[in-house]
């Protein structure tokens, strides 16, 4: 509809065009170009070379370790998030806001520091270093350390998605269920869980993306042993530092596809469930 006159809350057309252009240029430069560069570099020597890099034994080992890490840390954090949200959103207790702040703490800590703390605790010179050696248990420079560090950096994802969601929903439905004689667990499964499942899925989705992509924390505890303690992001680093660019970008492209898939699922979730929304990370 051609309108001759501008509503007072509407910006002039030239301003709209300018802002949209600036925004698209900025996002194109900062977001789209890097994404495009990854695929371009991966395919520089053709699809075959890229596929060969991905199907290399060390690459497959990295994929496997990344999947194992996510398979353990994501359910763990989902459980933690559900417990924390249940305690915080459905009950009143002193120190609640402090607890919420503490749960968010891992987002404010540098991933490198997150890795460092586990080295200090479980490393050779750490608190439990000698006892672990005596029992021949390896945590640092081994899979358990990688999983621990990943759990640390992803700990808040599910909790911070569920706490506001459950708070908004209040307690009346749960109280109704309990007053009709439902047990706590039954109340949770039958009343609460259906209300928060999309929020849970949203948190899990973001948690998974970070778990599979974490670099700094994992880098500190991994030891970079090829085929053994390399996750996909670490494998990318090794290949890149060896100037094996095609292989590095091929594995990176795989991670890009994961990121794009995450964004697609996230957008679909937001479209289908407007109550679920990102809360920043």
């Amino acid at each position, binding site marked *: 509809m051609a*309108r*001759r*006159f*501008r*509503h*007072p809350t509407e910006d002039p057309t030239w301003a709209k065009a300018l802002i949209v252009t600036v925004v698209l240029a900025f996002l194109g430069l900062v977001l789209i170009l890097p994404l495009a560069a990854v695929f371009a570099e991966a395919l520089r020597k053709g699809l075959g070379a890229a596929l060969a890099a991905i199907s290399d034994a060390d690459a497959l080992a990295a994929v496997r370790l990344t999947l194992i890490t996510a398979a353990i840390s994501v359910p763990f954090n989902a459980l933690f998030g559900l417990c924390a949200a249940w305690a915080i959103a459905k009950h009143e207790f002193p120190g609640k806001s402090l607890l919420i702040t503490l749960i968010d703490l891992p987002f404010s800590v540098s991933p490198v520091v997150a890795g460092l703390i586990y080295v200090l605790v479980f490393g050779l010179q750490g608190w439990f270093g000698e006892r672990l050696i005596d029992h021949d248990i390896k945590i640092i420079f081994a899979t358990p350390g990688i999983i621990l560090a990943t759990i640390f950096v992803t700990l808040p994802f599910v909790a911070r998605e569920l706490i506001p969601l459950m708070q908004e929903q209040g307690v009346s439905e749960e109280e109704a269920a309990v007053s009709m004689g439902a047990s706590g667990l039954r109340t949770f499964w039958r009343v609460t869980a259906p209300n928060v499942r999309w929020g849970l899925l949203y948190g899990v989705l973001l948690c998974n993306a970070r778990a599979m992509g974490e670099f700094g924390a994992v880098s500190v505890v991994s030891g970079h042993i090829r085929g053994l303690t390399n996750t996909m992001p670490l494998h990318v680093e090794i290949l890149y530092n060896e100037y094996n660019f095609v292989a590095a970008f091929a594995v990176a492209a795989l991670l890009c596809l994961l990121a794009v898939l995450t964004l697609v699922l996230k957008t679909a979730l937001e479209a289908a469930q407007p109550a679920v929304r990102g809360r920043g990370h």
Partner: protein
Amino acid sequence: MTISIRSVEKQFGRYPALGGVSLEIAEGELLALLGPSGSGKTTLLRVIAGLEFPDSGQVLFDDQDVTFASAAARRVGFVFQQYALFKHMTVARNIAFGLDVRKGKDKPSKVEITRRVDELLKLVELDGLGGRSPSQLSGGQRQRVALSRALAVQPRVLLLDEPFGALDATVRKSLRKELRRVHDATGVTTIFVTHDQEEALELADRVAILNQGRIEQIGAPHEVHDQPVSPFVCGFVGEANRFEGTAAGGRFTSGPVILAAAGAADGAATAFVRPHDLVLDEAGFSARVARVAVQGPLAHVDAVLADGRRLEVTAARDDAGKFSGEVRLAARKVHVFPAG
């Protein structure tokens, strides 16, 4: 300032909000735009304010065409339904805003602005609250701030959108008197939108009744109440019993109900009788009293006709005892409209 609205039409998508509205508002008048939701009353107010632009028609301020002038250029005072106070500013900054944003020689000095703000705070009886944040005020106080902010620019016309809609009943009544007092003190031409007929009838010099984007009737409060020109006005303003039936030879018949209807055109018709216009009359039609509720000086009677239809009668409290069992009723006054 006088305002002329000439054949204004406005559509939102395919929904016609205003279908050719014409209206003259006199200098210093207090006019109510009354209608149900969706009647176009708020749209009309926003067209006058320059917050919406009509698809066709004209808006004139003192014979000057402002149809497509920007809101900022019109110098109108607009009080929003939810007040739209600037939350991050104090009450005083809110009120001063319209003066603060002026440029060059139009902008009053700081001293002058402070003086104006104090004057306005006094006018709406909020002296001493200038330093508060809007979030620290009650609903009624926020409404007063919104009113004085609108008045600060010395508007040519004051426009209020459901000014009392968000308030509870007692505050609403006192603010109604307040608005009348402020209007009389400033003499500014004022238009307010309401869906509350009591508010409109009590406060306004004239009431314009809107329905489906058109003005059904405009007149003094007693005129629209006593001489409704359409079935809609009759049903919307004041209480009324409604009967569907036929008019023939100065009589209206609807089942057992027979009413005198001098001057009504023959044919299918709709008749309205106000509850207080129904009186006991041995020559009238019969009804059975179902319930009598006494409220203050009045008695509200629920009666049932022989065919099961219900009707309401309002009588003086002293006569409440006369309403029991079968009674005979007649109407002192009937409004008959051809069925359409």
